[in-house]
C-alpha cells in the first residue's frame, strides 16, 4: 500500500489540480459579467508587438485568467472564510458583519476632505444662489450605526458634523441622524431603504416647510431578490432581501429627464433597465443632472437637490411638494458648468444639499 501511495499521491494530486484547472480555464464556458461583483469580466487581450513590448498583454492575460478562473465565486468564499475563521480577521476586503448587516470600514475622519466638501458647497452657493434659501442634510453611513458600538473603528461623526456646521453658517442644517436606525438600511448594501424613510422625510419637510404636503399613502412594489454591493465584496453567502419602492398616483405621473441620455422616462425604471444594481430602479441610478416633473404636486414650488446616490431613493418622496425637482450630482458634472443647464434664479426655488458621510470623507470626487 505504502509503496503504491508513496510520492505518487502527491504527484498525482498536484498534477491533477494544475492541469485540471488549466483545461477548465481553456475549454470551460466563459461569462461576460459577474452578477455578484456587479462588473464586466475581462476579455481576452489582443496580442500585438506593442502589447508584448509594454507588457500589457501579460498583465491583461493574468487579469483575464483571474476573472474566468473556474469556481471563482467558491474560491473567493473559501478565502473569506479563511480570513475570518482561521486568521481571525475582523474584516475581509474591509467588509465586516454585525447581526446580519454588512458594513464597510471607513476611518479615520479625513478633515481635509470634509473641509473641501464644505468649501465646494459654499462656492456653489455663492456662485449660483447667493441669496437663496439653502438647506443641507448629512446622511450617516451604516458605520455610524454599526461600527463603534461593535468594536469597529469609524470616523468621528461628531467632529464631521461640527466641521460642516462651522463652515456652512449661512445654510440651514437639517439634522436627520436621530431619524435613522440600522433597520432603515439594506443588510448587504450601502444605502437606506426607501420604505423606512418616513420620519426622515418629515424631518426635512418640517425644516423646509413642505411637511403639510407629504403623504404616507403609498403602495409597496417589491423586487424579491436584492443583493447589495457588499454581497459581492464580502464573498460570503449572504441572503438576499426584498427591495421595496413606493408608488402612488403622484410618483406614477412623475417623469425624469436626464442630461446624459436626453431621455424622459418614469421615475422608477424596470428591473432589467436597472442592470447589475437593482437600487438603480430609483431614478435610474447615478446621473449627472436630472429634471423631475411632478404634474400632480400640490404646489408650484421648485427644488434643486445636490445629491449622491442616497438622494435617488428619498427624492421621489418629495414629489407631492414640488412641481419640479432638479437633481445634480457633481461627481459626474463640473459645478462650473451648471449655469448652462439649470436656472437657479427661478421663483419659489429651494436648494438642498444632501450628501452622505462616506462622500464627505472622500470628497475629491466632487467636481
Amino acid at each position, binding site marked *: 500500500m505504502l509503496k503504491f501511495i508513496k510520492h505518487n499521491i502527491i504527484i498525482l494530486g498536484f498534477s491533477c*489540480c494544475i492541469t485540471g484547472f*488549466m483545461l477548465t*480555464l481553456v475549454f470551460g464556458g466563459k461569462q461576460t459579467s459577474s452578477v455578484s461583483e456587479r462588473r464586466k469580466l475581462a476579455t481576452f487581450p489582443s496580442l500585438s508587438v506593442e502589447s508584448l513590448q509594454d507588457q500589457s498583454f501579460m498583465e491583461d492575460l*493574468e487579469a483575464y485568467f483571474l476573472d474566468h*478562473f473556474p469556481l471563482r465565486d467558491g*474560491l473567493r468564499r473559501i*478565502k473569506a472564510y479563511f480570513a475570518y475563521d482561521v486568521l*481571525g480577521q475582523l474584516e475581509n476586503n474591509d467588509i465586516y458583519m454585525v447581526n446580519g448587516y454588512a458594513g464597510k470600514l471607513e476611518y479615520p475622519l479625513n478633515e481635509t476632505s470634509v473641509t473641501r466638501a464644505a468649501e465646494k458647497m459654499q462656492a456653489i452657493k455663492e456662485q449660483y444662489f447667493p441669496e437663496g434659501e439653502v438647506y443641507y442634510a448629512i446622511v450617516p453611513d451604516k458605520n455610524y450605526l454599526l461600527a463603534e458600538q461593535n468594536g469597529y473603528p469609524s470616523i468621528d461623526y461628531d467632529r464631521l458634523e461640527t466641521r460642516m456646521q462651522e463652515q456652512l453658517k449661512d445654510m440651514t442644517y437639517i439634522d436627520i441622524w436621530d431619524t435613522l436606525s440600522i433597520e432603515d438600511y439594506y443588510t448587504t448594501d450601502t444605502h437606506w431603504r426607501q420604505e423606512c424613510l418616513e420620519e426622515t422625510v418629515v424631518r426635512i419637510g418640517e425644516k423646509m416647510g413642505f411637511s403639510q404636503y407629504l403623504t404616507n399613502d403609498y403602495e409597496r412594489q417589491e423586487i424579491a431578490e436584492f443583493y447589495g454591493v457588499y454581497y459581492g465584496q464580502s464573498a460570503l453567502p449572504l441572503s438576499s432581501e426584498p427591495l421595496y419602492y413606493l408608488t402612488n398616483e403622484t410618483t406614477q405621473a412623475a417623469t425624469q429627464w436626464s442630461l446624459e441620455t436626453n431621455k424622459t422616462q418614469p421615475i422608477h425604471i424596470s428591473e432589467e433597465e436597472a442592470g447589475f444594481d437593482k437600487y438603480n430602479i430609483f431614478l435610474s441610478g447615478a446621473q449627472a443632472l436630472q429634471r423631475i416633473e411632478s404634474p400632480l404636486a400640490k404646489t408650484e414650488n421648485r427644488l434643486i437637490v445636490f445629491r449622491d446616490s442616497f438622494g435617488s431613493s428619498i427624492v421621489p418622496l418629495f414629489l407631492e411638494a414640488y412641481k419640479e425637482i432638479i437633481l445634480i450630482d457633481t461627481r459626474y458634472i463640473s459645478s462650473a458648468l451648471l449655469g448652462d443647464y439649470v436656472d437657479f434664479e427661478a421663483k419659489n426655488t429651494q436648494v438642498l444639499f444632501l450628501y452622505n458621510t462616506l462622500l464627505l470623507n472622500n470628497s475629491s470626487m466632487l467636481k
Partner: protein
Amino acid sequence: MLFSSITFLYFFLPTVFILYGIASIKQDITWRNLVLWVMSCLFYAWGEPVYLFLMLAQILVVYGLTYLMEKKRESVAGKVCFALSVLIPFASLFYFKYTGFFMNTLTSWLPWPESWVKYAKGITLPIGISFYTFQLTSYCIDVWRGRVKLQKNLLSLMTYVALFPQLIAGPIVRYSDIDRELSKRKTTKEDVAEGIVRFSIGLGKKVLIANVLGEFVAEVVAPEVRGLALSWGYAAAVSLQIYFDFSGYSDMAIGLGRMFGFHFPENFHYPFISGSLTEFWRRWHMTLGGWFRDYVYIPMGGNRVKKVRWFFNLLTVWFLTGLWHGAGWNFIIWGLFFAFFLIIEKEFGKRAEGKRSLIGRMLGHVYVLLAILISFLIFHAENMEIALRDIKAMLPGASLDRAQLENASFMLRNRFGILLIAVIGSTPLPALLWKRVFAWLQKDVVEEIAKAVGVIVILLLSTAYLIDGSFNPFLYFRF
C-alpha cells in the same frame, strides 16, 4: 512572471512539466536542458521582454571570455579575459542599478548636466540582475581559480544562468552547486514529490502569510498616530513579511529545482531563533552571505589580518551587502548597522561564549530580535527619515486621542491571527510537531496522504487569495 500567478501555476508550470516529460524520453540531457532554457527565456521575457537580450548577451560574453581565459591562462591575455569576464557583468549591474543613485549622491560635488540626471533617472532595473550577475561572476572566478571546469557547452551555461526557478530572486546558485546536474541528472519520483511539497510550502508562505502581512503593513497608519503596541506590531509585521516573502520564494525555487532534478542550496534556516546576529547571518540569505564570504571577505584577508584591517574588511563586506540590496542610503546604513553589531559580537562575544546562563541566552535572543526589528524597519522604509519615524514610534511618549487609540487597537486585533501564525511559522515548531505526530502515529501512509492533502489545500487557498486580491509583489524582485 511571478510564481504566485495564475499564468505560472496553471499554464507555465504544466506546460514545462509536459515538455520536460517529453524531452526526458530521450536519454540525451541536451533535450531536457533545451526545454528548461527555452522555457526559462519565456519566463524571463514575460516580465522583461527587452532585458532578456541583455541577459543572453552577458552569458555569451562570459562564455567567450572564459573560453579564451582558459585557453590563454598563463598569459596576460588570459588575465585580461578573466578581468573582463568579471568586470563586464558588474559594470552592467552598476549601470542599471547604481547610476542614478551615485549621480544623485554626488550631485552636490559634481554639477552634472540636467540631461544626464534625467537620463539616469530613466534607467530601469532589469529583474533579477543582481542575482544572475553574482552567478555569472562566481562561475568566472571559480573557473579562474580552477575550482570548476570550464563549461564548453553553451547550452549548459545558458541553462545554469537562466534556469527559471532561481533566475530572478535566488537563491544564488553557484555553478559548482549544479555543475554535475547540468550534464547528468536523474529526476526520481521522490525528487518530484518532495519538490512539489517544498514548492507548495513556499507558495503558502508567500501568498497566505507574506501577502497578508503586506496588507497589514500597507494599511497601518502614520507613525505619529500608531501608538506603542501597533508600532511594535508593525515592526514585527515588516520583519516577518520580508522573511516569509523571501524564504517563500526560495522554497518555491528549491522545490521547482528539485522537480527537475536540481538540488539548490538552502537559503534560510529559521533565522529568527538565532542567539546572535552572527548566527542570524548564518541562517538568513545563506547563499548571499556565502558569496560575499568566498569572493570578497576571504580574498581581502578575512580575519587573518591586523585588527584594523579586519574591521575594514568587515565594513567593506557589509557596505557591499547593503548596497547589493538596493541603491539607497537606507540599504547601506542597514548593512553597516549589521557590521557594527557583528564587530562587537566578534570582539566581545567570544569571551562570553559557553558561559551564558539561561537568562543570558534569553537576553541574547531578545537582543537579536530587537536588532532585527530595527534593521528591517530601515530596510523596508523608503528613506532614513521614514525609518527613524518608524523606530521612534516604538518608544513610549506619543499621546493619542481616543479615536486614534481605537483605530490602532482595531488594526492590531484584526491582524493578530496572522502575526501569531507568522511568529510560530518562523520557528522550527510546526516542522517539529509534524515529525512528532507522524512518528507517534507510525503510519507512513497517513503522512503521505496528509502531505498530498496539504499540498492541494495550500494550492487552492493560494489560488483563492490570488483571485480575490491583487496584493502580490515580490519584495526581492527589486534587487
